[in-house]
């Protein structure tokens, strides 16, 4: 099977799951307690206003009519209107998405850059103090609630030491860079604005660190166990008997092969990062889609929750597809 047919096959295979996702989101939103019309209109609205809203949002129609209306709207990219902001959900989400993407990508790169050296070190120096330390750090990282460790970092680095800002993407009086990607660190670099880059980076460090730390821990553990397994293989012994330098053996023969199973976990980590981003954004007042949906949740703004969940599910499905493709590219034995 050629690569293109494989991708096409996988994309077609995603359709039933995507339909299932939409059905689940629709019926979840209908399980909501209380009257959506009442929520939109407020407590003091009279009967006539409620009727108008019901008609406008097809709430007076049977469920199956609403169901098809929902699909019709999705087909033209209409995710509904937020109760709170009275604006289309899709454009609100797209506006905030770059902030979340910047945070997620920064923490993913931090996690990978930290996990690979730590995991390799830990495997090579197995059962030595450095190995115990790395394992301790990773158990701690997996077990730490992001929402708590984030607060502790804000307390230490912002409130006590005042080394780093304690939230949001830029200072209150700073104008954001001209929008190109929507990611402030990238945009300020593209605009050639050094001080602005520094400011946006200093705002990014704490949230990206705390969000990435848990996954760095998880990935380091994976790299360690994968390295340990690879290092016992015959081809490593061959490399050693050829008299190759230990460094070359570990990095070129060992690590390259050890990283293959790690790629699958990187996809999983991305899912966790998207979930964790919701908590991190809340703590650091980071104006991404995660904070947006938490605020919406408190006001029972269900079009926003529906749109957000659907968007994230789609992103996640594509990430999984990319991970699978990478996996088969790295390991041609797997089809």
């Amino acid at each position: 099977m050629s690569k293109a047919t494989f991708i096409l096959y996988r994309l077609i295979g995603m359709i039933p799951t995507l339909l299932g996702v939409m059905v689940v989101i629709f019926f979840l939103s209908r399980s909501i307690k209380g009257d959506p019309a009442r929520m939109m209109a407020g407590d003091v609205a009279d009967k006539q206003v409620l009727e108008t809203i019901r008609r406008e949002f097809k709430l007076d129609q049977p469920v199956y009519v609403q169901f098809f209306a929902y699909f019709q709207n999705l087909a033209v990219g209409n995710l509904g209107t937020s109760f709170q902001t009275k604006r289309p959900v899709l454009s609100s989400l797209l506006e905030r998405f770059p902030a979340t993407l910047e945070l997620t990508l920064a923490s993913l790169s931090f996690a990978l850059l930290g996990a690979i050296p730590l995991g390799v070190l830990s495997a090579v120096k197995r059962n030595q103090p450095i190995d115990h330390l790395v394992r301790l750090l990773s158990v701690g990282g997996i077990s730490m609630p992001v929402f708590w460790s984030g607060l502790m970092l804000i307390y230490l680095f912002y409130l006590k030491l005042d080394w780093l800002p304690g939230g949001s993407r830029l200072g209150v009086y700073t104008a954001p860079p001209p929008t190109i990607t929507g990611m402030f660190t990238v945009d300020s670099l593209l605009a050639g604005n050094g001080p602005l880059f520094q400011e946006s980076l200093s705002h990014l460090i704490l949230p990206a660190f705390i969000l990435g730390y848990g996954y760095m821990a998880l990935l380091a553990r994976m790299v360690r166990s994968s390295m340990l397994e690879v290092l016992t293989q015959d081809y490593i012994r061959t490399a050693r008997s050829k008299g190759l330098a230990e460094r070359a053996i570990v990095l070129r023969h060992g690590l390259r092969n050890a990283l293959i199973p790690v790629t699958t976990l990187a996809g999983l980590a991305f899912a966790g990062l998207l979930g964790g981003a919701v908590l991190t954004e809340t703590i650091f007042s980071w104006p991404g889609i995660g904070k947006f949906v938490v605020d919406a949740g408190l006001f029972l703004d269900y079009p926003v929750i529906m749109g957000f969940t659907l968007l994230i599910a789609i992103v996640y499905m594509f990430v999984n597809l990319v991970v699978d493709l990478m996996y088969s590219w790295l390991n041609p034995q797997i089809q």
Partner: protein
Amino acid sequence: MATSSVLLSPPFARDSQPAWRIFWRAARRILQNRLTLFGLSVMLLLVFTAVFAPLLMPDSPTALRLGQRLRPPSAQFLLGTDEFGRDILSRIIGGTQVSLQIGLIVIGLAGTTGYLLGSASGYMRGRFDGVVMRVMDVILAFPPLILAMAIASFLGPDLNNAMIAIAVVHIPKYTRLARSEALALRESLFVLAARSTGASHWRIITRHIMPNSLASILVIATLDFGLVILTAASLGFIGLGAQPPTPEWGLMVADGRKYLVDAPWVATFPGLTIVLVVIAANVFGDGLRDVLDPRLRV
């Protein structure tokens, strides 16, 4: 023939030793590992504290004392008081009941559902299997925490709804594991023997398939405990889990967030408790897996 002996006997009765000896050997290996022992001790302490919470609490976890707001840790209030003058130590002790209950109910719900569905699915194959696995694919199409949040917010902010939400998210893990075990077990001779005596499908699934995959399921359940507590605390933190004045740890951290400047202890201690319990659960789960079912090593 080597293959037939594998087919004949279920995986955990391979050596014909009495069950108590296998259990004893597993227990000894668990106790020998210091890290696993630490995990076990903390878990036992958690259960002990939850059972005897009313006797252990120095104060009521919900009594308001507005004259004693945000007091720092002292001899009277070992871990300080929160915004309503409630004793934080008592609330953490009360929280053990909430967390233990969440862990047991969620894992019980998700584990039983997934275990049954997966075993039936792997044994029956065919259309039933197809439908079940499609449903699991849909659940797995969402990042876990996001789906739990969505379900919890649509069902309404409440601890019971949060538990249902977290359980739903965890079902696929058990279903997939039980299914893969059942797929292997259904080909074994003892299942064929049972079928030839006219045993019903239900009987074969519950009496012959399920007992033989129980060990793996229990290991996964133990490993899940920490994750479930963490997820429940996260939902509590963003207001979708336990509601005030329940002494739930995630909720307590959220309460402390507003007073981080003047009273950092309000957020610090409940968070530390979460870390301790989750580390213990993870370490104990790892140890148990190594002893009971090393194949499951991730």
